[in-house]
C-alpha cells in the first residue's frame, strides 16, 4: 500500500516463482508417468500460472461455485500443466501428480472433468474447446452472471475447422465474457506450424472474424497480466490473446525443439531438467529477497 510499485513487483516475482514450481511438477509428473507432452505443457505454464494464481476468480474448496471463472484447456495434451496448477491451487493433493497416467488413479492422460476436481471440460481431441467456451459464455449471458470463460488453445489446433465455426459464433453472439488464448509456440508434432499448415497471418485472421486481439510474449508475467486485465474490459466482442511462447520453455534441451512434443525425459534428462529448474527457482527467490530488502531499506 505504501509502495504500489513494489507490490506489483512482488506479484510478478511470486508468479514467476510459482511458474517454475509448475514446470518442476510438469517434468516430475511426465517423468513419473513415462509418457506425456512436456513441450506444450512447458510453453503454457506461465499463462496458466497467471490465470489460476491471479486473474481467475475460483475457489478450490468449492470447485462447483456457480460464479467461478471457467477455463477450458482445449489443448488437452498440456494436461500436466493444468494438473500442476490445480494441485498447487489446492484442488487436490500435489502428491497425486506423480500418479499421472497411472491406472487406478484419477489424473488421466488428457483432462477428464468427471474425475479431476477443477477440470471444467474433458478435452483431448483438438479444436473443440472454443465451442465449449462459447456454450459456457452463452450460459453466463442467459443467467446474467459476470463470470468469464477462458479457453486455452494450441496454435496447431486452430487448423481445425471447428475452431473457426466457434470463432464466428463468439462474435455473432457478442461474447465479451469469452477470452481465448493461443499458445503460439510455433511447433506441432510433424514440424513447424508454418511448414505443416500455414497459420499466418494469425492476428489478421482472428481480427477479420471480429475478435479483439492482444499479442504478447507468453512468458512475461507482466505482459500476461496486462493482457488479461485489458481483455476483460472489452465490451461486445470476444478477445483472443496470442501468446508467443517457446515450446519446452524453461528446460534448455527441450526449449524450441520438436523432440519433446510428446516424449517423457529419460532419467538423465529428468535430472538435468530438474537441476536447471531448481537453479531457476533459486535465482527467482534470491532476486525477490534482494528486491524486498532493498525496498524496505530506510532512506
Amino acid at each position, binding site marked *: 500500500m505504501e509502495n504500489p510499485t513494489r507490490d506489483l513487483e512482488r506479484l510478478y516475482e511470486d508468479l514467476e516463482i510459482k511458474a517454475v514450481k509448475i514446470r518442476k511438477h510438469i517434468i516430475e509428473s511426465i517423468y513419473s508417468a513415462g509418457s506425456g507432452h512436456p513441450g506444450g505443457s512447458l510453453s503454457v505454464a506461465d499463462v496458466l500460472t497467471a490465470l489460476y494464481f491471479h486473474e481467475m476468480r475460483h475457489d478450490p474448496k468449492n470447485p462447483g461455485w456457480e460464479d467461478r471463472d471457467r477455463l477450458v484447456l482445449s489443448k488437452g495434451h498440456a494436461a500436466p500443466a493444468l494438473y500442476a496448477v490445480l494441485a498447487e491451487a489446492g484442488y487436490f493433493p500435489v502428491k497425486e501428480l506423480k500418479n499421472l497416467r497411472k491406472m487406478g488413479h484419477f489424473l488421466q492422460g488428457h483432462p477428464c472433468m468427471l474425475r479431476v476436481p477443477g477440470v471444467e471440460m474433458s478435452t483431448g481431441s483438438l479444436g473443440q474447446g472454443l465451442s465449449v467456451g462459447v456454450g459456457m459464455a452463452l*450460459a453466463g449471458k442467459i443467467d446474467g452472471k459476470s463470470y468469464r470463460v477462458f479457453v486455452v488453445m494450441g496454435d496447431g489446433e486452430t487448423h481445425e475447422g471447428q475452431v473457426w465455426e466457434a470463432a464466428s459464433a463468439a462474435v455473432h453472439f457478442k461474447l465479451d465474457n469469452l477470452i481465448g488464448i493461443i499458445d503460439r509456440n510455433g511447433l506441432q508434432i510433424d514440424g513447424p506450424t508454418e511448414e505443416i499448415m500455414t497459420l499466418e497471418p494469425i492476428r489478421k485472421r482472428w481480427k477479420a472474424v471480429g475478435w479483439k486481439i492482444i499479442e504478447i510474449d507468453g512468458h512475461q508475467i507482466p505482459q500476461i497480466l496486462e493482457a488479461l486485465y485489458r481483455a476483460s474490459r472489452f465490451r461486445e466482442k470476444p478477445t483472443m490473446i496470442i501468446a508467443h511462447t517457446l515450446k519446452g520453455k524453461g528446460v534448455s534441451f527441450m526449449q524450441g525443439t520438436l523432440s519433446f512434443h510428446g516424449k517423457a525425459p529419460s532419467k538423465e534428462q529428468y535430472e538435468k531438467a530438474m537441476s536447471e529448474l531448481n537453479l531457476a527457482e533459486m535465482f527467482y527467490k534470491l532476486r525477490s529477497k534482494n528486491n524486498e530488502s532493498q525496498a524496505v531499506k530506510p532512506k
Partner: protein
Amino acid sequence: MNLKLLNQNETRLMNLRDAYSAALIELGMKNPNIVVLDADLALSTKTKRFATQFPNRFFDFGIGEANMMGAAAGLATCGKTVFASTFAVFATGRSYDQIRQSIAYPNLSVKIVATHAGISVGGDGASHQMLEDIALMRVLPNMRVIAPADATMTRVAIYKISEEKGPFYVRMGRADSPLIFESCDWFEIGKAVQIKDGEDITLVVTGPLLSEVLKAQELLKKEKISARVLLIHTIKPIDKEAVINASRETGGIITCEEHSIINGLGSAVAEAVSEEAPCQIKRVGIGDVFGESGGPSELMSKYGIDSSHIAQAAKTLLKERKK
C-alpha cells in the same frame, strides 16, 4: 398398463416434429434451464417455434453442427438442459467426434433430437437419408438412444429425457406418421412395450415403422400366424428381458427398422438374445447400400421394409424353422 391403440383403419397422421416442438415449448415454460440449439434447420426441425417463444434461450448456430455440439456441452456444464436439433445425418455423422469427446465422455445433459432420419426422407436422396445414426449413437458409452413410434410417444419421450441427466439421442423421421397411441403415460425409458400378443413369432420394431409392423401382423393373422409385436422405443439401453422372453416364448424374431441392418435395432436384439436365449432372427431394414431419391412409400417398398416384406420375412423364418 393402459395400452390403447387407436383404430389403424381410420388413420390420423401427425408429424413427430410437431409433437417435439410442442413438448419443447411446454418444457420451456416449466423449466428456465431448457435451452434449444439448432444449425440452420430450425424451420425443418420445428425448433423455430421454441425460438419464437423463448428467444433468449434459443441459439441458431448456422451451418456448423460441430460447433453447436461443443457449445451444447458448454451450456450443459453450466446447468442447462440442452436440446440440440438438426437432421440426423448431420447431427450424428457430421459431429460424431464432438458428441463423443465433449458430450458422451463427460456425460453431459445434451439431448440430441434429430429429424429426417431414415430412407423416408425421400426426394433429397442418399446424401440426406441417414441410415447409420442408431449405429453411431448406440456404440457410445453414456449415450441412450430412443426412436418414438408416433407423435404421442414423442411428446412423452421428450418430457422423460428432459428429466434424466446425461446425453440422449432421439430419432425422428421427416414424414407425417400414423397416430398409434391414445396416450403414452406408461412410457418408461428402456422398457419395451408389447403391442400385440402372439405365440408363433415376434416382430420387434422401433420408430414409426410400427404402423407397417401392425399391418404385417394383420397380414400374418389372415394366414393363421400369431405374431407378437414388441415395440423397442429405447434401442439403448435395450430391454433385454423383453427380447429374451420373445425368443424363449415365440422361438423366432423379425427385427424391423428404417435403418441399416448393420448395427441398428437388429444387431442390438441379436446381441441381447444370442448370449442368453438364441433363436433365429431375420433383420428387416436397409441392406448395406445407400438409398436414392423417390417417394417415401416407394422407397420403403423398394428397399424392403414395408408391411409385405415384414410379413414375408416372418413366413420365411417359420418355413425355415419347420425344416
